[in-house]
């Protein structure tokens, strides 16, 4: 699914990435605990989160995240948006909850970024 299609599906607005309308989103991961994001994501994932602190973008940068979706009506501060522009990482914001956002994404063919079970990772 392309970025602008994803934004339409989840009723979101593209904050960063209007210049990348053809970017393909096919894998995602949802978490607010950044350690979970660091532990469990594979490359080329889109991150769904309700955290809007600057550390989220630093994690996104380190992990080569494809795009970040902010849920629950959270609007990231201008400094975070500027950082995302610098990194060319698209940002989408939606009023829907994490559950609704993930449900809609899954229903439209987006799948988990995990290629192995959680139990194989970090002893869980």
């Amino acid at each position, binding site marked *: 699914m392309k970025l602008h299609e994803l934004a339409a599906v989840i009723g979101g607005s593209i904050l960063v990435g209007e210049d990348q309308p053809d970017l393909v989103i096919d894998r995602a991961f949802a978490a607010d605990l950044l*350690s979970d994001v*660091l532990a469990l994501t594979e490359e080329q994932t889109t991150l769904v989160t309700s*955290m809007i602190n600057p*550390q989220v973008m630093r*994690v996104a*940068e380190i992990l*080569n995240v494809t795009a970040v979706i902010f849920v629950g009506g959270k609007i990231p501060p201008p400094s975070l948006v500027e950082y995302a522009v610098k990194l060319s990482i698209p940002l989408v914001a939606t009023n829907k909850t994490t559950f609704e956002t993930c449900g809609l994404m899954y229903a439209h063919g987006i799948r988990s970024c995990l290629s192995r079970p959680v139990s194989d990772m*970090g002893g*869980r």
Partner: protein
Amino acid sequence: MKYAIRAGDIDHGGSASARIKSELTEAGVDATTARRAGIVSFEGEMNLIVYSDDGGTLSVIVEPDAVIVELEDTGPGIEDIDLAMTPGYSTAPVWATDLGFGAGMGLVNMKQHSDGFEIQSQIGVGTKVTCRIERKGDWKRRRGRDHETT
């Protein structure tokens, strides 16, 4: 690369690690290794910010076959390392968990993303963590190159 990390400086949390990841990439380290080193650095950097008494240092050394990430502080030290290495175990203060940190996965993540992991800690003295990340992507590339030339 060596960075001084200040205790409690949550606003800058992860900024040294983000810089390290991009500097490693610029230095020609393969993307997977740079990503793993970034993850290890990030967790270590956050540990210094959230738990150390007086901050500490985050050092990265690039070797031909590996990237070494080293973290060192001067206290308080970890009383029970096995317990600290248990997934989900955390002594993080509420201000850290409110920001999405302190999930009790930091050291576990560091070990998981390293090929070599060593931790030494003494109460009242400090903690030193050394992580070795093999440059596997670069090996592949080098092997590919060798193959092409032979």
